[in-house]
Each structure stands twice: as C-alpha cells, then as structure tokens.
C-alpha cells in the first residue's frame, strides 16, 4: 500500500471534517474500552497473565531463530511447507506462484494485516487472480476499495447506510429496492454472496494470530467463522505471518489467548479459535491437501536487533488503538498506512521509514493510556520518544522547531538570564492581557489560540516575587 503518512496533518484535517467518520468514532470510543474493562474485572489474574505473556514473548524473541526453525521442522513433518520471505515482494511472488501452480482463479481470504502490509490483493488482481475478502468488515472495504481503518475492526469508520449503499452497488443480482436497513439483512446478504465464493475458491489465504513451534500449528482467531471456511474448503491453504508470531508451546499460546480477546473486544474468547496443524491427513474429514506457511520478515529482524524489539511482542489486539485519544479524534486512515493508533505510530516508521512517517510519533501527547492497557506491556510512549530521538539525531524534525528548541535551551541552561528574560516577557504579556485575563489571539501563538484562549500570566514570575519577599534560597 502506498503510504500517505507524510501528509498526516492533511489526512487528519480531512478526517476531522468527515461527519460519518466522526459519528462512528464517537460510538466506537465508548464501546470497546467499556467491554474490555468488564472482561478484565472478571479475571483477577489478568495482570499476572500480562507479565507471563510478556516473559513468553521476550524469551521467544531472545531465541527467535531456534523457535522458527523448530516451527518449520514441525510444519514439514506434518506434510506442509514453509517459505521464508525477506520482504513484501518475495511474499507476493511466493503467493502468486502457489496460486499459479494450483491453477487458481479465485482466492478467498481471511482477515490478515500482513496481507495488507504486502498489498496482496492488488497484486493478485493485477495477475488475474481474484481475491475475495471473507471477513465482513474486510469484504465491505474491499468493495469500496479502501484500506482498513482499524486492525481488528477494519470498517469501523463506516456507517450502516454507507455499507448498504455499497451492497446495492455491488450486489447487482439482488433487487435494487430490497430492504437493507437492518444490519441483519446486510449480514445475511453478505453471507449468501460469500458462500458461493467459498465454494468456488481454489486457494484460501489467512493470516495467523500465532504460530506454535512445538507442534507446527497455526492459531487463528475470528468472530465470524470465515477463517475456518477459508482454511478448510479450498484445495490449497496459504498462511501468511510475520516472524514474531511464533510462540514456543501450546501452553504459551493459551496464555496469550486469554489476553487477546479480552483486550481486543472484551470477549473472554473470540467466537472461533482454531488450531490448524498441517494439511489434511488421511483420517481427516476435511481440510486442504496442500498447506503453505509464508514467514515474512519485512523489517522484523531489523527491529529484533534495535531498540524497538519490544514492539515485536505486539499481538495486534487493538487495545492501544481503542484507548487512544488521537485515534479517537481522527480514526485510522489518517495515519496513512496499514496500521494505526499507538502501535501504528511505532510500527509504521519502523517498517516504512521514519523520514516517511515522521509525523506519527510526534502526533501524540504521550498520555500513556496505550501502555496502561497493552496486554503485552509494550512501553509505547517510550518507543514514540525513541523515534523522536532518531528524528532529532537525523535532523529530520522541522527547522523552526529545532531552532526554537535550541534558543530556548540556551536560555534555560542559564538560570540568571532565563529569569530575566521570563520576567520581562510575562510583564509585557500581562500588560496586554490584564483587562480580559486572557488572549483570544496572539502573534506567533495561533497554534494555541486557534482552538482556545490563552490565559494571561499574572505579570511577575514566582522567582522574582520569592526574591522580593526574601524567601530562602538554600
């Protein structure tokens, strides 16, 4: 996907003016956090599970090569095949060649953020293979040619009416005047349309929530069961997953599963949690004869070796997004690439470059709510600061900001000078603002006064008053 992160402020501006989006965000910001809270209150050991999950992932990342090789061994033993893909291009080519080998024309897809990351749909379309998204939200945005706006709720930015319009436009086989006001009606219609696709597809592509090294299993969590139909009906199954999805054991996977749905949607468990191990065996009733797993690096091994390693613990639950006041104001598309919210603000610069996505780590108040809710205890604000450090070091931050900062720091390092400058400054400002007690507008302060008044200072500094009153200094 082509990034628009560079023009983040424009994206955000547009998003804040989008009435439909704003209505959706207002509904959304109340929903998930409340449900999460309730789910967690029902599980007293939640915080100790977080510690356990963090430790599991830290251990795995410490020994990532070992667990990945073990995973590969197991998959191979079970009759499947692992493909190592260094970057998006090699992943796309691998998927395409598997599709070509199996003569596929139609591919069903479960929701996969890695699929978004490598832009698999556009690529397959260009090569005459039709990908069909089967997660309802993904299906809707595929019809509308939009990227997802949330990692677990891809169509969260849309209203019911917008969805109904898209269905009327694309499902030409149905009478135009059919009632589609109720979500249920839309759901049934999507189901019928998708059922045909499920039966037609030669290849099914899914992501993975986890890869289990000890068994070579993939773990897939959905609420719609579409993942299972995508996995079991076609002749060929392709799983695309990034390297850090691996965990050592089934036990470890269940620890993380206990956190995942609770953090994401406030469910104790998602409706479907499926462990898939290899292709169909002779005694199995169903399942695909061919089973491929693509292990995608695409920047992960670089992160493994730098100060962003902890980000690789992320299980893509979306809790940080659901609790982010910035996301709540602008939604997901404004971030300009596949991911969004705090996890996106850390991941995107790491994956596509801090020069391209430099706004994202800055567009945060570092309020810390994300870290507070992250089930994997990822210090997201600290990572955002580290990205800012990088930008500053590389002199990527805007010149006026750097110069302003340098001037301010020069003065702030010299207390006597600083106190003199401040004394003069606040006296002048107070003289101007004395009558009203606030400014509606000030030169060079429009950033502040655009949205709010600037309360006027009292007119003297604490330091000068303290001296005047003969207060103790030491």
């Amino acid at each position, binding site marked *: 996907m082509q990034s628009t992160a560079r023009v983040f*402020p424009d994206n*955000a*501006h547009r998003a*804040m003016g989008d009435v439909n989006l704003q209505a959706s965000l207002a509904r959304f910001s109340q929903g998930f956090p409340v449900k999460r809270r309730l789910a967690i209150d029902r599980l007293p050991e939640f915080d100790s599970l977080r510690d356990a999950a963090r430790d599991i992932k830290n251990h795995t990342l410490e020994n990532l090569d070992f667990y990945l090789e073990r995973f590969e061994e197991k998959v191979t033993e079970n009759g499947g095949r692992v493909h190592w893909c260094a970057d998006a291009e090699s992943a796309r080519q691998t998927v395409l060649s598997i599709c070509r080998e199996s003569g596929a024309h139609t591919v069903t897809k479960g929701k996969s953020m890695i699929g978004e990351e490598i832009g698999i749909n556009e690529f397959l379309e260009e090569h005459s293979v039709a990908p069909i998204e089967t997660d309802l939200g993904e299906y809707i945005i595929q019809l509308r040619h939009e990227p997802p706006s949330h990692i677990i709720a891809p169509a969260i930015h849309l209203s019911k009416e917008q969805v109904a319009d898209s269905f009327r436009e694309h499902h030409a086989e149905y009478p135009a005047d059919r009632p589609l006001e109720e979500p249920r009606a839309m759901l049934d219609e999507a189901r019928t349309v998708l059922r045909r696709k499920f039966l037609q597809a030669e290849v099914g592509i899914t992501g993975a929530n986890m890869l289990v090294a000890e068994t070579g299993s993939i773990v897939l969590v959905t609420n719609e069961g579409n993942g299972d139909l995508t996995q079991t009906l076609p002749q060929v199954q392709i799983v695309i997953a990034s390297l850090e999805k691996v965990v050592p054991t089934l036990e470890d996977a269940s620890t993380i599963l206990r956190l995942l749905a609770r953090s994401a949607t406030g469910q104790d468990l998602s409706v479907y949690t499926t462990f898939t191990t290899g292709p169909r065996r002779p005694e199995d009733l169903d399942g695909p004869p061919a089973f491929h797993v693509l292990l995608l690096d695409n920047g992960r091994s670089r992160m493994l070796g730098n100060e962003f390693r902890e980000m690789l613990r992320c299980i893509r639950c979306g809790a940080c997004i659901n609790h982010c*006041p910035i996301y709540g*104001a*602008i939604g997901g598309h404004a971030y300009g690439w596949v991911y969004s919210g705090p996890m996106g603000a850390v991941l995107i610069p790491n994956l596509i470059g801090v020069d391209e996505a430099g706004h994202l780590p*800055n*567009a*945060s*108040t*570092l*309020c*810390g*709510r994300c870290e507070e809710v992250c089930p994997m205890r990822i210090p997201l604000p*600290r990572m955002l*600061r580290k*990205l800012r450090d990088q930008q*500053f070091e590389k002199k990527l*931050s805007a010149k006026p*900001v750097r110069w302003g*900062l*340098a001037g*301010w*720091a020069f*003065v*702030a*390092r010299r*207390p*006597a000078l*600083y*106190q003199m400058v*401040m004394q003069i*400054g*606040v006296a002048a400002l107070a003289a101007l603002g*004395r009558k*009203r*007690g*606030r400014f*509606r507008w000030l030169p060079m302060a*429009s*950033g*502040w006064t*655009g*949205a*709010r*008044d*600037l*309360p*006027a*200072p009292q007119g*003297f*500094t*604490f*330091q000068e*008053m*303290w001296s005047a009153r003969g*207060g*103790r*200094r030491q």
Partner: protein
Amino acid sequence: MSAMRPTVGLFVTCLVDTMRPAVGFAAVKLLQDAGCEVVVPAAQTCCGQPAMNSGDRSDAKSLARQVIKAFAQVDYVVAPSGSCAGTIKTHYPELFDDEPEMAAAVADLTERTWELTSFLTTVMKVARVDGRYDGVVTYHDSCSGLRELGVRPQPRALLEGIDGLSVKEMEMRDTCCGFGGMFCVKYPEISGKMVDAKADEVLATGADTLLGGDLGCLLNIAGRLSRRGSRVRVRHVAEVLAGDIEETPPIGAPRS
C-alpha cells in the same frame, strides 16, 4: 535532615513560575503548614521535558544535570505538577541510561522527588487540610501524574477537608485533555478537538469549578472553556487547599 522539619526544595516548574506564581506560593504555604522548611533554589528553570519529548536528548540532559545540582542539598524536591515530577522520577533514569556514572546521582534525586499532593499525604502524612471553598468541583487527573506517579486519590483526600466543597467526577476522567506540551501547538487541530471533548466532559458534570494538579492541562482546558463562553472557574488544586482564592482570579478570568 531533621525528622521534625525536613527541608523541601520547591521545584517551581516553568509554567507556574511564569504563568501563575500564585500556585507556587500556595504550594509553599501547604508545605510550611505541613511542617516543612521550604527553600527555592535559584538555579532552576525547567525540568527539560520539552527537549526530551522533542528528541533533543543532549539539551534534556543538560537541564536534568542542572536540576540534579540545584537540588542536591535538600531532603525532598516537590513540584506542584505531576508532569514535571514524573519527568524527574521516571524519565531521568532513562535519559541517563547510557551514562552509568550518573546512575547514583539520578537515583538519589528521583527518590527524593515528589508531586505536591502525594508528598503531603504520603510523606508528611497530612490527613486533612482545613479550609473553605463554596462550589461543586470536578477534578482533571493529568496523564503523567496519573500514570507515572499514581496521583488520583491524594488530591481528592485533601479536598475532603475543605468545607463547602463537593466533588462531581467526570464520566471519562482518565482521557487526555490534548495539551501534551509541544503537541498542542504542533498539531493544534487535533489538540483542539481533544480539549473540546474534555470541555464537554467538564460541562456535563454541572460543576462550577475545575481543579487539577498540572498547570499545562489547566491552561489548556481553561482556554477552551473560556473560548466557549463557559463560566466554569479553573484553578490549581493547591490554590483551593491553601485558601488562596481571594487574591488571584481563576485561570483566564479577568482581575475583578
């Protein structure tokens, strides 16, 4: 340190120093009433947070060194701000993680550093502050104080002693007001939307007064409230606790 009268170095904070010295004097009064000897080292300016949050580690470190030095002699360092105290307590160690020779000095400072209300309740064991304030108050928990230092019950406990004051909490009291230091001027539109939502929350409580423990957030919310023509009075919690409300008009209000 004398067990009876610890010496507290007041870390005034740059915003209180320049925008609202009354908060500093209120803090001094509260500390003295609690039995502290208060000193204000002259060689202080800013904790360095603006530099740190802009990625300018080297300036942030210089300012941090200045703080370490200025407050080397006192028993405690107390700031009327969760944000500045949080910077010292939680971020100085990170800032110097590549300079092990600084570790001892940093640890020594962080152990002695407190946010005002938590210092009063936890260290000085102040159970109540007597006073009077006629009004219904809602309280904004600033993010750094809340999440880095666990400041939430302390100011509320202290307010319980104030006659005539009742507290009406906001629905979403742990969401950020959109101040975020430089954030509010770098991304004014997003910040504006956030503070507008916070103003909605404040107004929905029906409270006539908004209190908080961080001047940055209070200037932000007061500015938005007054832009919307609201009459809600905004003050730092220390002003109400210290009874300093006659002298100084609420934040952003004209001198009557």
